[in-house]
């Protein structure tokens, strides 16, 4: 079989890379921002991700989910660049975590915050609660809640079993909710007095 000229192959690689990979730049950027927290580090991470993706483009299987492939590269690059958190954070059991959510809701009801998330704009506090999560939990929330990845997709990206994604995700949500209820209580947000979302400490 006759091989195409090198320049034609290069052109085809560039065309495919632009169409398949570069289209996900905004998504990879958001993902990097959520991992790195710092904007300059996120920029470096994005650049490293796409340079690695371009260098190993022949290993990408056309027709598969390119965005997930880029997320894997991005996450690996991020983890290589920092010391992993030594603290053991894996959640025990997804089912227990799911049931624990009911306890958090009961606590919110008891405190008068049963409609907290529907009635108060807590954007800043939610972002802070997300940032404060241990990294494996933050990754699960980032992929599923911010990037609309399914549990299976997130498991592939994180290279862990689906059950681990579920338990990390559910615990992460519980930790965030507890932090947000504490925040609302500390901030003196009046429970259940608003009928429409309003800015935190709204006027």
């Amino acid at each position, binding site marked *: 079989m006759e091989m195409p000229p090198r320049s034609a192959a*290069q052109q085809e690689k*560039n*065309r495919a*890379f*632009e169409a398949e990979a*570069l289209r996900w*730049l*905004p998504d990879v*950027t*958001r993902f990097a*921002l*959520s991992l790195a927290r710092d*904007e300059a580090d*996120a*920029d470096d991470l*994005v*650049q490293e991700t*796409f*340079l690695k993706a*371009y*260098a190993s483009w022949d290993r990408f299987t056309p027709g598969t989910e390119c965005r997930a492939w880029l997320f894997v590269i991005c996450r690996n690059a991020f983890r290589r660049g920092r010391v992993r958190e030594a603290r053991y954070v894996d959640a025990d059991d997804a*089912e227990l975590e*799911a*049931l624990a*959510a*009911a306890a958090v*809701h009961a606590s*919110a*009801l008891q405190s008068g915050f*049963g*409609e*907290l*998330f*529907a009635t108060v*704009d*807590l*954007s800043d506090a*939610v*972002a802070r609660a*997300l940032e404060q999560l241990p990294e494996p939990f933050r990754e699960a*929330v980032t992929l*599923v*809640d*911010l990037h609309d990845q*399914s*549990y299976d997709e997130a498991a592939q990206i994180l290279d862990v079993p689906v059950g681990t994604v*579920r338990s990390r*995700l*559910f615990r992460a*949500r519980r930790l*965030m*909710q507890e932090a*947000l209820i504490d925040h609302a209580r500390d901030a003196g947000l009046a429970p259940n007095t608003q009928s429409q979302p309003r800015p935190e400490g709204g006027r």
Partner: protein
Amino acid sequence: MRIFNRLFRRAHAPSIDCDTVMRQLWDYLDGELTADRAAAIRQHVEMCSRCKPQTDFEAAFLEAVKRTRREHPQPERLRGALLEALAKQGFASS
């Protein structure tokens, strides 16, 4: 016939109790269940005074989390720098 089918389906819908809903609530809200299972939970939640408030609470929480998606403040600058770095590796935008 349509009414009969509806009644038949309702009569044979898998019954779900509150405990099961609690165990599968996140899976339900994340769209991870089969259509039949999701429909059964939706049906239960709509009629259950215990499960409905928690479902609304969790759904509102997920919406609040989604609203925190961060966008890069200067996407064009980032894209320009990236294309420049890729060009050194042989990439050329068409």
